């Protein structure tokens, strides 16, 4: 594990010591190499986790998320090149340093063994993200967005700290490896109910759950492209990952405590999808679609069946890649028209057909077309929720329909129809942009061939 963490930390001196015209090249290349190292972790020989040390480990759940994180750093760097091109050199280096710091914390979070270290790093990821959103965002609302982001997440996670400390006192250790063997049923009492709530609320806010999701559209919309990418792809998955880890110790309360959250998620899934149909702002549409997909993950985690865990992990990885790609596409529109309104940049298929092809692929995976891994995730979740209760299929089915509708609505509005009259002075697609989209799509398509890797630890 140090093989990955130390090089990532070393990326920071790399940026500060590079020459002016080499900063992007150096950082992108080295972060790509680091991601190739992390791919070797995917080879999990046994059902137990791969333990590297007392502090870090990786198992079939965290390995795909880790690879996704390391894979996204070079993509984020490539995506940020354009909007940072006019900044002074020191600010560019600061930006890359922020991204790298975030990356380090994320890697350590996904591989943490102790829950307290997981918590500390979980909170630590907030700081670079906040700096990126508020310093390099584009509109004045970014300050408000940063505020919402920070305080929502803090309010949710402070109870988690209390809960973790109390569990440490009670059971003597918070090590993941030990907890698997220590696990006893929690007795049914009021304090245990609060314990359950305290543990889960942090992750519910992070996911986000439908009632607590207000920070997400603000943060996603105001963040610069790399911020949006990392937010959508990884930070939301931190919540899912945390939930998947912590629900192992929280039985049997989960069977009745989960009902209100399940109802909120099921309903919220449909509500946020419907809001997407009426959005005018492109990034906001993608943000709400993230909420909708994550609600599916929440439902899957709360049902706690082997199939639903598989669906949740597959959906997390698939959604990470798809959302990140959609944000990159939205950014390519933004860089040309400097506005996020969808109808200002329509009819793009006439002018930029290759980009239209990427738009098509991203929209198709967003609506979970077979045989992509998005479908596999969604299908597994739908199957397991059908077994939990037959009626949920109606809500899930409605969600699938509305998802298809808004994804294609997004596609049609930006690509098809008559183009605007002010469109003839936009720059053609850069190779960098096409490479970005290809690098997003290729893992998605390759994983469709062998989804075993991302199906998590209940396969």
């Amino acid at each position, binding site marked *: 594990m140090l093989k990955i963490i130390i090089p990532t930390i070393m990326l920071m001196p790399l940026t500060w010591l590079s020459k002016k015209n080499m900063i992007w090249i150096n950082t992108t290349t080295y972060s790509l190499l680091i991601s190739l190292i992390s791919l070797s972790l995917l080879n999990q020989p046994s059902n137990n986790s791969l333990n590297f040390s007392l502090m870090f480990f990786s198992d079939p759940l965290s390995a795909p998320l880790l690879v996704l994180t390391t894979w996204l750093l070079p993509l984020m760097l490539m995506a940020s090149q354009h909007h940072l091109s006019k900044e002074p050199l020191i600010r560019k280096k600061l930006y890359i340093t922020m991204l790298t710091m975030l990356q380090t914390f994320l890697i350590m979070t996904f591989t943490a063994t102790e829950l307290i270290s997981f918590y500390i790093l979980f909170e630590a990821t907030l700081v670079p993200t906040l700096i990126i959103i508020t310093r390099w965002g584009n509109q004045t609302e970014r300050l408000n967005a940063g505020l919402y982001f920070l305080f929502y997440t803090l309010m949710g996670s402070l109870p988690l700290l209390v809960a973790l400390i109390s569990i440490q006192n009670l059971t003597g250790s918070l090590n993941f490896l030990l907890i698997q063997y220590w696990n006893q049923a929690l007795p049914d009492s009021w304090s245990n109910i609060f314990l359950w709530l305290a543990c889960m609320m942090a992750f519910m806010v992070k996911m986000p759950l439908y009632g607590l999701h207000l920070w997400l559209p603000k943060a996603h919309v105001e963040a610069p492209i790399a911020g949006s990418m990392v937010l959508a792809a990884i930070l939301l998955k931190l919540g899912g990952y945390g939930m998947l880890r912590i629900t192992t110790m929280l039985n049997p309360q989960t069977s009745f405590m989960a009902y209100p959250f399940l109802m909120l998620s099921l309903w919220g899934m449909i509500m946020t999808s419907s809001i997407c149909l009426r959005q005018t702002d492109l990034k906001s549409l993608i943000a709400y679609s993230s909420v909708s997909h994550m609600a599916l993950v929440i439902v899957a985690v709360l049902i706690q069946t082997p199939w639903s865990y598989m669906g949740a992990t597959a959906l997390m990885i698939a959604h990470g890649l798809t959302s990140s790609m959609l944000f990159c596409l939205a950014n390519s529109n933004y860089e040309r028209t400097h506005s996020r309104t969808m109808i200002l940049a329509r009819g793009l298929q006439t002018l930029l057909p290759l980009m239209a092809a990427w738009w098509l692929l991203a929209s198709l995976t967003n609506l979970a077309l077979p045989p992509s891994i998005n*479908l596999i995730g969604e*299908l597994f979740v739908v199957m397991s929720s059908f077994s939990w209760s037959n009626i949920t299929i109606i809500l*899930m089915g409605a969600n699938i*329909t509305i998802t298809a*509708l808004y994804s294609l609505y997004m596609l049609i509005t930006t690509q098809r129809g008559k183009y605007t009259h002010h469109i003839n002075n936009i720059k053609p697609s850069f190779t960098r942009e096409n490479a970005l989209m290809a690098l997003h799509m290729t893992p998605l398509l390759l994983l469709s061939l062998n989804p075993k890797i991302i199906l998590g630890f209940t396969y």
Partner: protein
Amino acid sequence: FQLFIGWEGVGIMSFLLIGWWYGRTDANTAALQAILYNRIGDIGFIMAMAWFLFNTNTWDLQQIFMLDPNLTNLPLLGLLLAATGKSAQFGLHPWLPSAMEGPTPVSALLHSSTMVVAGVFLLIRFHPLMENNKTIQSLTLCLGAITTLFTAICALTQNDIKKIIAFSTSSQLGLMIVTIGINQPYLAFLHICTHAFFKAMLFMCSGSIIHSLNDEQDIRKMGGLFNAMPFTTTSLIIGSLALTGIPFLTGFYSKDLIIETANTSYTNAWALLMTLIATSLTAVYSTRIIFFALLGQPRFLPLTSINENNPFLINSIKRLLIGSIFAGFFISN
């Protein structure tokens, strides 16, 4: 699962092809409409998949048939919903006429012969399960009957040649669903195969007419093509005759058998009556096309380049023509 992949795949291809002329707003909305109705049907498909997974532990058709579960109402309802969405049965039907925004070869391939029969094909594949479930059979029968009557009546009042043929497709699909409802899946499959020939040919002929009249699709503005486009006229007439089931052309072998079986089987009399009326209406609207498009005096603009000299078009129509006449004979012997 593989069936689902293909199922969704054709849905998306339908979206892409209907919206082929993407500069045109109507085409885009029609494409989106197609996806909407298809997706609603897909919910049914997924529900059936979920039920099968949890009651028979498999998605494999052979295993499901071997296990022969009781109480198959829920999944078969799901499959019926899927077929309704995909094959434009009554309730999820509006996308098929709107899908005529696509180019004519698209309509010929997707929306007359192959894709729309995917729904019927699904029901045929699951017929061992449907044999045992009388409720579902009655439901399919009534659904099919309503569809064929409703769309046949709609076809009578249309003025756009492609829409008439689209409604006729919908009506024939209803007929296929009726056949499944009377527990004759093999006949339904036969009708799929034979219907493909003459419907595709009808679409191609209409495409030839539209193209040579400079994109004029309204039959009130056509006329007198009998002398101007002899080959197209011939194929159109033969296609319509085959559609109505004139003896010894292709349609006879499947359609007439269906009508005979329906008449002699112990089935819902109301559905039977609706099917018979719809079949007679088939003759009516086919004759309407022939009358308006081919006979009479020309009603189009005088300066047109009517030609039939595109060899690709003519060869395709020629092959479909031979198929329309002889295929029924060859398949059933």
